């Protein structure tokens, strides 16, 4: 048990330089932007007053040499002082904090659906390779892979919101209604269906194909023959032996795809008006509020690092061959 805790601690420590590097990279990216750095930071929305721009200049030490600027920037980011957004009228940190939960909700729902449905369909497809389930899964995953996410969302809106009127077209909840308790949960759930489905499509395809391939590969393994020689039924072999081994590549893939998931949420939230970090990023683009955009960027990167650590830990829990060393 101790070894595992040490492993977690070490992974956390490893994550820190990565995050620091990302912050430093952000700093240099901002430097690349054309124009005066303070004005860039304040945003071209024109709402910035001259005093504010001057304050920025001092806070970020923009008249000092570059290394000093870098240190100031890093310090500001780490103390979660990401500046002030004029357009939104509140500090960047509180903006991000308020938008974080809806994004996590959306990503969690999409990922959860993709994993469960992907595993089930992938297993079904591998049961009879070439059968009609397999063919269906093949075609479905090929289409989902090739589909642009924003277009899929828009088409879902056209069919299910505009024509069939089964689901609302946008937003997270009916704000004017002030629902409480369970009604509120149901309301949010209703709004969540289409966005989560859209976001999950690509990953559904991925996990379906992966699970199918992993199951087929594991079924050819020697330990399956041993299990059969012991007298187990095919179902017992599948559930007790094969499935467990086939899950390993899926877990690895979750970690790898986290970065994509965050990017996908930008698109889905924009299309569906979902009030999360993604939409905030889009708004900041329009407002040329690069400071806000960078803040979101850093937070997303931290999120990816954290999820990757969780994935690594989960992997060591399942696969005893990976020494938590």
């Amino acid at each position, binding site marked *: 048990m101790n070894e595992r805790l040490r492993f977690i601690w070490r992974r956390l420590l490893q994550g820190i330089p990565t995050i620091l590097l990302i912050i430093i990279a952000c700093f240099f990216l901002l430097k690349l932007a054309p124009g005066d750095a303070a004005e860039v930071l304040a945003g071209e929305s024109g709402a910035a007053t001259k005093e504010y721009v001057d304050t920025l200049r001092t806070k970020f030490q923009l008249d000092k040499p570059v290394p000093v600027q870098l240190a100031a920037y890093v310090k500001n980011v780490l103390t979660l002082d990401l500046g002030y957004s004029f357009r939104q009228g509140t500090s960047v940190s509180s903006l991000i904090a308020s938008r974080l939960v809806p994004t996590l909700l959306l990503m969690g729902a999409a990922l959860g659906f993709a994993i469960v449905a992907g595993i089930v369909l992938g297993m079904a497809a591998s049961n009879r390779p070439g059968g009609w389930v397999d063919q269906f899964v093949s075609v479905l995953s090929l289409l989902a892979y090739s589909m642009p996410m924003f277009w899929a969302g828009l088409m879902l809106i056209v069919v299910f919101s505009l024509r069939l009127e089964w689901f609302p077209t946008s937003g997270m909840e009916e704000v004017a209604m002030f629902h409480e308790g369970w009604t509120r949960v149901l309301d949010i759930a209703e709004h969540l269906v289409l966005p989560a489905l859209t976001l999950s499509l690509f990953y559904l395809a991925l996990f379906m194909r992966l699970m199918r391939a992993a199951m087929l590969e594991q079924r050819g393994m020697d330990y399956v023959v041993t299990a059969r*020689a*012991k007298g187990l039924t095919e179902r017992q072999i599948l559930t007790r032996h094969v499935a467990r081994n086939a899950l390993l590549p899926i877990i690895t893939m979750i970690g790898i795809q986290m970065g994509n998931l965050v990017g996908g949420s930008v698109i889905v939230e924009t299309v569906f008006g979902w009030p999360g970090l993604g939409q905030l990023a889009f708004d900041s683009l329009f407002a040329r509020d690069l400071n806000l955009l960078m803040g979101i960027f850093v937070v997303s990167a931290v999120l990816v690092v954290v999820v990757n650590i969780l994935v690594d830990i989960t992997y060591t829990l399942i696969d005893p061959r990976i020494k938590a060393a």
Partner: protein
Amino acid sequence: MSTKTLLEVDNLSVTLPAGGDREFAVTDLSCTLCPNEILCVVGESGSGKSVFARSIMGLLPVPRLRVSGGSIRFDGQDLVNVAPSEMRRIRGNKISMIFQEPMTALNPLIRVGKQMEEVLCVHASMGREERRSLITGRLQRVGITDPERLLRSYPHELSGGQRQRAMIAMALLLEPRILVADEPTTALDVTTQAKILRLIKDIQASSHMAVIFITHDFGVVAELADRVAVMQQGRLVEIGNAKDVLEHPSHPYTRSLMEAVPRMKFRGPRTSFDKAPAVLSAQALCKAYRASRRSQPVHALKDVSLRIRRGEAVGVVGESGSGKSTLARSIARLVDVDAGQILLGDTDLLRLEREPLREIRSKLQMVFQDPFASLDPRCKVGFTVAEGLLAHGETEENAMRRTDELLSLVGLGPDAKHRFPHEFSGGQRQRIAIARALALGPELLIADEPVSALDVSMQAQVLKLLADIKERLHFSMLFITHDLRVASQVCDYICVMRNGEIVEHGQTQDVFADPRHEYTRELLSAVPGLAHELSAAEQTCMARIGIARSPSTSEG
């Protein structure tokens, strides 16, 4: 020998998928198995022996392979058309099977104890305590000294020998009437193999179980079998009592196989190379590997010294992990050592880099173990052989001429140079590899287990080829192998390696006839079937030096 037959196989045929080299994996196979006997099924790769073993238990990978004709009767019950649920009742219970690769035959994610318990959960209703004590008892029976620890372990935490013992214990849990063993010792070290063979023989004797033992090694047959069945290309060509078949084989194929089996050579003309100049002299080679910064270093070579004289064949024998391959690769400068000196003539190889090293490489050539991996599948054979010559500045015309000569020398003919490696068999590919090695006219040929991956008949041919061309071209050879019989045939001088050190060395006949070191004796006594090869005089000699005829069966 009981009169009642336990297993009756009648004209069994198993089809192969379309597009293979033949239509049937097994054709018209008929044999019987009586209780309380060990039947060894022996054959080369592709003979269908494994397919036969699996078809008994209904473990064929349907639909690729299918029983298309004949019958298998176990105690009167038809096993081919049996209902799946009935077959499952028999598997692990009445008939059990153990496999070749214990590492992959166990699920890497589940503890060994749990996997063993599964057999009991499926076939018997026992309480947890009862299961535990039964399993622990069996593990002790197979020679595991700490059963509790093994039950808690995962497969990758055990050694090869321990895994195979656990597999055997698992197969024997419910005291089956028949044990089918598919090459269970092939993947193990020689010393471990000897112990496991002894173990199987013991268990069979005490439980009167029938055993079908698949193998390619006639030494194992000599050790173990009551009866022998010889298979060739899916057909059973000879079957009979072990003594009869081994000493007076009637079928020509069996005869050719027996001739190809390498024998331990204890006597023969001695060639002394003391007067010849040293071609290679390696001094105090040290190499350590570190898996990661934190773990203990593994010493692959500990202060190893070696000398090879002109025209001499020096053998390095040892088991896996002894460092013999590392030694070969260090001398060939494929791997860097941490300390030491390698003198080729007067030049210290370890001091050379880049251009001078590249040039001197032509004097040291290597033949590798795996004939399938040592040739680039995308290059034509002619190019592969000529590449070294071209790299050293030879003209294309001369290189091609030399390639033709070499291909003829190894028995393949100049036409081979237009073809690709996958068109050749394993033995033929090894000949191509030898031709490539000879292209640059080396002074020293390093052969790293060159015949270990080959079938017995091809093995004999390649060894003969090596001996012939060594005579003709007068080069020296460093021959790495784990098989003492092969080493005794080929080598003039022998070094025995263990855990990175040379524990004994000397003229081959001296070392094998009068082994000084305990480990050498252990290796010698582990050679399967050795006792049956020795003449009476040799046997007394062996006994005098104290080579145990019956190695202990417990681990360690």
